[in-house]
């Protein structure tokens, strides 16, 4: 299975019936296409929409209706529109049950770095810092290591922080890891990998849950 699809499907299993969910730009947005049957959730888009629907057909395209990734979307029946101030009151006020975001690095304290690489063009943090500060649960969806095989789950972030002690769970193509008060706990590994392979690509310390599940 494709690496991204594996991550997306595993993240989709994090959704609970009745959740209000914010999906970050990029890979997390694709989770919306894999919502398990019987799970009814409402998608929040920080540009001012609760009830994001599927992409429009050509005939439905409306330039006044986009998501936070600036993609054309539709709104489901029962959707609502609101200002940026209201949108982030929902976020900071703890009304969003779950946010799924990408990451550059996560460390063993649950600190997150996902918005800038010093020396490269800095595009801005958008709503990421607010989402990690306010959402009730923060799940990171990312590839386990960088393209050149460097770990992204590290003892201490080397890149500038997005938030401190904000991550609850990390879902990668290889593993599901929880951030607990006692450090990182490896809960699951992918069908196609081994514990040794996960260890080799993770520089942060973690304990292994028993029994270790497969996904």
């Amino acid at each position, binding site marked *: 299975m494709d690496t991204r699809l594996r991550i997306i499907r595993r993240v989709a299993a994090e959704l609970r019936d009745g959740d209000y969910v914010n999906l970050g730009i990029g890979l997390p947005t694709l989770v919306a296409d894999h919502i398990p049957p019987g799970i009814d959730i409402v998608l929040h888009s920080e540009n001012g929409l609760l009830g994001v629907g599927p992409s429009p057909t050509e005939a439905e395209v409306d330039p006044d*209706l986009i998501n936070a990734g600036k993609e054309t979307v539709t709104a489901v029946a029962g959707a609502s529109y609101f200002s940026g101030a209201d949108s982030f009151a929902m976020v900071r006020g703890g009304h969003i049950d779950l946010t799924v975001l990408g990451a550059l690095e996560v460390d063993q304290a649950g600190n997150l770095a996902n918005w800038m690489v010093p020396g490269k063009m800095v595009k801005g943090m958008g709503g990421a810092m607010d989402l990690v500060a*306010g959402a009730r649960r923060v799940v990171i969806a990312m590839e386990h290591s960088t393209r050149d095989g460097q770990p992204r789950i590290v003892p201490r972030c080397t890149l500038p922080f997005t*938030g401190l002690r904000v991550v609850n769970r990390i879902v990668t193509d290889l593993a599901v890891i929880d951030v607990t008060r006692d450090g990182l706990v490896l809960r699951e590994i992918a069908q196609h990998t081994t514990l040794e392979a996960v260890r080799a690509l993770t520089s942060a310390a973690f304990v292994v849950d028993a029994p270790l599940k497969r996904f």
Partner: protein
Amino acid sequence: MDKRIDSADAAVALIPDGATIMMGGFGLCGIPEMLIAALHRRGTRDLTVISNNAGVDGFGIGVLLEARQVRKMIATYVGENKEFERQYLTRELEVDLVPQGTFAERIRAGGAGIGAFYTPTGYGTLVAEGKESREFDGTHYVLERPLKADFAFVKGDRGDRHGNLTYRRTARNFNPIMATAARVTIAEVETLVAPGEIDPDAVVTPGIYVQHIFLGGPYQKRIERRVVREG
């Protein structure tokens, strides 16, 4: 009241060089197209622009950047346009990046007479540097100050001569809060109706926040990322 002004050109004639202007919109959605184009024609310079994004090459705030009319941008996410990136990297353009929720709340506070507020956003990060932090009930917060402007450019769907405004779908975004936070708010609308035609229950921006209003159009409403499904 009659706050109608003849045109976008008449409205931007009020704006001096060096002004601070809030501009509504998220990406290219809900941007004040007429006012941005008029400001470009007039050539007003040394502007500080407060906007979530900075437009794209050749459209929206992008045209003001290409004409070197902007000295400083306060935004949350930028770099969708090459000219922005060039001016940013050569430091011709000053850029202040703000978390989006903090950006929205600073504008809201600016319009609502709030002197400062504590937010958990950005605690322990670069954006908290040099700012007061405080702990309340076990959570750390950062002290943030309001944002205000000399002018706000707001794009509404319907409006009347009192300045009452409605918005359409996600084109609302930052428009209603920016309308509250400027000394002079100029609204462009797609339909200008007689007072009473907008149900008072449906008014999003009450006219008190708007100083000038005009009928805009035709609108281009460019789409940044057209994503469609079969069907």
